[in-house]
């Protein structure tokens, strides 16, 4: 039997407060796609981490741009693709933090991409023309 493929997307501006739209979007999706609250929380987290990076670092100050978030659910396979037009940045190349360090030695920050890697099964990056395309896949 062919698995049902569902798709939904959201476009936000490169502003931190737009993350609230992402939360609302996921709340609606939770109901519509009947995703468990725990999975929605994980999706929320990886999206926030990826989007925060883009919003904070991909653009010159005061440059307004749009970021596209595309979610596809096929059976228990969730694919999230984030596309932005910021400077080239490959999150998959970021070094993992050393999580065995003591509190004194742990640097503040640097956890965002690491959390994504821990939660998702696969991440990949592609620069396509003037766009960054970051893909995250999870099978539940």
């Amino acid at each position, binding site marked *: 039997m062919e698995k049902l493929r569902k798709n939904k997307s959201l476009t936000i501006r490169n502003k*931190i*407060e737009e*993350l*609230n739209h992402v*939360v609302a979007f996921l709340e609606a999706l939770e109901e519509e796609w009947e995703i468990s609250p*725990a999975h929605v*929380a994980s999706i*929320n*987290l990886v999206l*926030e*981490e990826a989007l*925060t990076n883009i919003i904070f670092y991909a653009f010159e100050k005061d440059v307004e741009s749009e970021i596209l978030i595309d979610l596809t659910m096929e059976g228990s396979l969730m694919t999230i693709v984030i596309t932005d037009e910021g400077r080239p940045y490959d999150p998959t190349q970021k070094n993992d*933090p050393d*999580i*065995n*360090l*003591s*509190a*004194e030695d*742990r640097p*503040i*920050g640097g*956890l*965002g991409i*690491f*959390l994504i890697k*821990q*939660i998702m099964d696969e991440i990949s990056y592609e620069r396509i023309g003037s766009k960054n395309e970051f893909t995250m896949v999870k099978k539940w």
Partner: protein
Amino acid sequence: MKVSNKSNDEGILLAVEGRVDTTNYNEFENAVNEVLSDDVKEIYLDCSELSYISSSGLRIFLTVQKKMMARAGKFKLFSMQPAIKEIFDISGFSSIFSIYPDLETAKQN
């Protein structure tokens, strides 16, 4: 996100409710800093109503922990929801924070 101050004669007790994320982590930091005067040696944080945390929230937890350790103080977290505990686990934060099942246990240790 809401932080309430439930401190009494026995010590500093805060409770954090809702989401601590990139849109509000600075409010969380300010609320904690408000009670973090130089003479405070122990802070208890009720995490029972903390429903979501991202790396932006985690960095405030780490900042507070560093401050408390620098003054040989203690930052004790308790009643954390399993989903939040999982984020602490995968970040390696569970081993650098004191996390207790409830306030009573936190006080005894």
